[in-house]
């Protein structure tokens, strides 16, 4: 199947551990769905980056996947810090608290794979989504992008779409 024959989906998953990412990566490889490619990027506690990818990349010339070393929006926990609580309560109680602590906490941005974290990117024809997507069970953040067109162009478009969706999840 040529990848410019249909819509391409790209799933990006973010993880807090290498184990979880590898588990999903292997699960995807074994899901029975056709893959254009899959790559898992992990960063150990000393900051060393490691990349594993399927040979689909070579087969399909999907170099765009392997080049994506940093995945946008891996994980950005909303820090509902208790330190901000008093402002909200105090406001309700009519207490004098400075307005800056009463501001809603800004969403935190996470632009790169953190130390100790991992990311998974899988590209597949839209028709394989029903098999591929259920195989990804452990991602703490995930988004699926899609695009049509010539295969490289579609692949990049789908990655961009997925990254955009991940970024939106954080706002």
């Amino acid at each position, binding site marked *: 199947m040529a990848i410019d024959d249909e819509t391409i989906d790209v799933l990006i998953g973010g993880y*807090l551990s290498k*184990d979880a990412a590898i588990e999903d990566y292997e699960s995807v490889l074994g899901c029975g769905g056709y893959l254009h490619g899959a790559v898992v990027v992990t960063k150990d506690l000393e900051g060393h980056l490691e990349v594993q990818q399927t040979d689909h990349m070579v087969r399909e010339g999907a170099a765009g996947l392997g080049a994506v070393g940093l995945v946008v929006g891996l994980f950005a926990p909303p820090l509902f810090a*208790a330190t901000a609580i*008093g402002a*909200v309560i*105090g406001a309700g109680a009519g207490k004098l608290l400075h307005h800056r602590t009463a501001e809603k906490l800004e969403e*935190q*941005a996470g632009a790169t794979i953190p130390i100790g974290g991992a990311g998974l990117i899988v590209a597949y024809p839209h028709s394989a989504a029903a098999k591929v997507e259920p195989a990804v069970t*452990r991602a703490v953040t995930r988004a699926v992008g899609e695009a049509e067109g010539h295969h490289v162009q579609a692949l990049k478009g789908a990655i961009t779409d997925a990254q955009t969706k991940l970024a939106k999840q954080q706002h």
Partner: protein
Amino acid sequence: MSGPDRTKLPIRRPAFGGTVARTLDGCQPDWAQIDHPHPPVGAPNVLVVLIDDAGFGNPSTFGGPIDTPNFTRIAERGLRYNRFHLTALCSPTRAALLTGRNSHTVGFGSVGEFSNGFPGYTALLPHDCAPLPRILRENGYSTAAFGKWHLTPDGQQGPAGPLDRWPNAWGFDHFYGFLGGGASQWDPCLAENQKIIGTDPAFYDEDNPYYLPDAMADKTIQWLHGVRAQDATKPFFVYFATGCSHAPHHVADSWAQKYKGRFDQGWDRMREEVFARQQELGVVPADAELTVRNDAFPAWDDVPDRLKPYYARQMEVYAGFSENADHNVGRVIDAIEELGELDNTLVIWIWGDNGASMEGSLTGSFNELTMQNGIPLTDEMQLQLAERYGGMDAWGGAMMDPHYSAAWAWAGNTPFQWGKQVGSHLGGTRNPMVIHWPDRITDNGGLRSQFTHVTDLAPTILDVCGIPAPDEVDGIPQEPLHGATFADSFSDAGAPERHTQQYFESVGNRAMYKDGWWLAMRTERIPWVLTPAALQPYAPGVWNPDDDPTELYYLPDDFSQAHDLAAEHPEKVEELRALFWSEAEKYKVLPLLATLGVFFGIAPPLPEVSTFEFRGDVENVLSGMVPRIYNHSYTISADLVIPEDGAEGVIVAEADHLGGFSLFVDGGRLTHTYSMMGVFVFRQQATEPLPTGEVTVRMEFAADAPKPATGGEVTLFVDDKPVGSGRIDHTVPIRFSGYAGLDIGRDNGGVVDLSYADRRPFPFTGTVKKVVFDVRPHLALEDEHAVHLAGQHGQAVHAVSN
């Protein structure tokens, strides 16, 4: 023969009974002048054991799933007490135990970290409430405490003190343990007497690593041997307060492995199993009912199958940790037996100080401080973070600071509702107690069901020792003890109840007990939830405590609090509610929720000092004493001397890889690592090597805004020249650690940056002349107030989680 007057302490030296002349000619010495006070003849040794954060349904001695053979052997040769009560928080229970007075009266309405300006919440023991160890010491006992303390305010835990609220000043001749509410069991920041001694050298021995529970038993036995080597008969009072089973749940895997598969049935089924055993043992009456699960806790059946092993392992580790505590208490008891003194030693062993702790939230955590810092992590995230630091097999090891799910804690409090912090119900206020004293107790294995309370322990101990509670100590008239002796129950199963009335209050949750009736007044806030929505109903002017839901129980007929009788007895509800208010006023409980006052704008004055200077030999600064770098911009600078051949090592580091920072030199380059609770790790490194000679380095954190958990930019400087930079997306809003300290010139114990773990403590090979923190650069006054208040909020959160 009348003895000395023990009602006024110290005991007065007797009048000189000899004769004195100008020379020795004809003189008669009085040898009593150089004697010391002796306790009354026959006064026994006393060993008080207090387990931490454990529930009524935990130990097998009371039907629980955790094997406690030593607790059981003591019970089988002594007595089980199944209606023993305490407060629903750590420090208050300890204060009440050691003073014989209600915790609020002695300043411990809350925990030691949270010292505020209301009399019941100062965390400062009043001088008119001399504690039990002081009384015993003044009456001729050797006294010692081992393990958890938690009765010294956070800001007084350094060499400048003041030291008058440290264990020695409470009356203990000797102390070995930790001052805070919790400690790593592998790497505690230790205190011994009046000094913080930090990490034990054995921490670095990978073949035979340090383990606090083992060390506590070793030190206790050594101390007993030392006392006996000097004096064969002087009675001792030992207070053995384990860090177990408080988080972090640290234990060697071999202990956890004993429970492999034993919790696969989940918490709901476990409760049923425990309840059946409790009734079989008779520690729960046959007509009692198992209370139902509150919706705050998930059903085990609703837990996804793939996560059940994650949850089960949490409880396996907790169980192994707890059994290890039983083992080490057993070693101490064996040592007393080997001395031939067990028959004349009153052993009081309490399994838990406030019920089991639900502070792990529903998910449990690889790092208990993530909850206190308000980081919402799902169970899947927690599992992945556990995998990052070694996997679930390492849960319990030194790489994590784990806490189990609140649902396990609830099950550990079987057959009751709720747990720690919930002073309105028995899950947080009734724990197993065993008393062993062969010289006086002959009803081996007997059960006692008198209503007893933690304030009764000191009066009981003094009673059996023949020592009166003093009415004056150091010339200060004393507050009478609030508890009552129950010593007659040692020999009489039908001894009358003397403790017929008692208030309870913890974090706003309150109860009033009188003659079997128990009025429960629980705030509806879930203990592990401190969100605005959860707290807003309790704001000043909003909360009317009398509007809280009430439940009424009659305990003689309803052991577990399964049947709410409030609707049937409204007059009893009103009677007990009114009694609570009068007791609350009498014992300094008011204002309610003083513990959380800071959330409502009641904060201490702004600190006057914002720069802190540390010379190069300062280490083991406890976490509550470390400059607060949270939620705003700050700088850390250091004056160094770099030898000709260069230098490497840590300049300054706080805490460890699960939350902390380190400024260090590696490969000749200045490096800064910041661990956001082990969830995120940020590292910045200089692009050029350090020069030699006299060098000043600096890291600047420019916060995006003075606000909780702010991100910001880090810049590294060498002699005022920027040499590196990077971003920290998330910072820690409240506290890196409750128990790991700050070091200059090294990173003691667990390290912040694991890249130098193989060189720990990675001492600096040049010279650190001084390190300076400036924690208030560039703040407008209004921002300063805001950040100060935010810091106090965090302190409160930390406080109610210990």
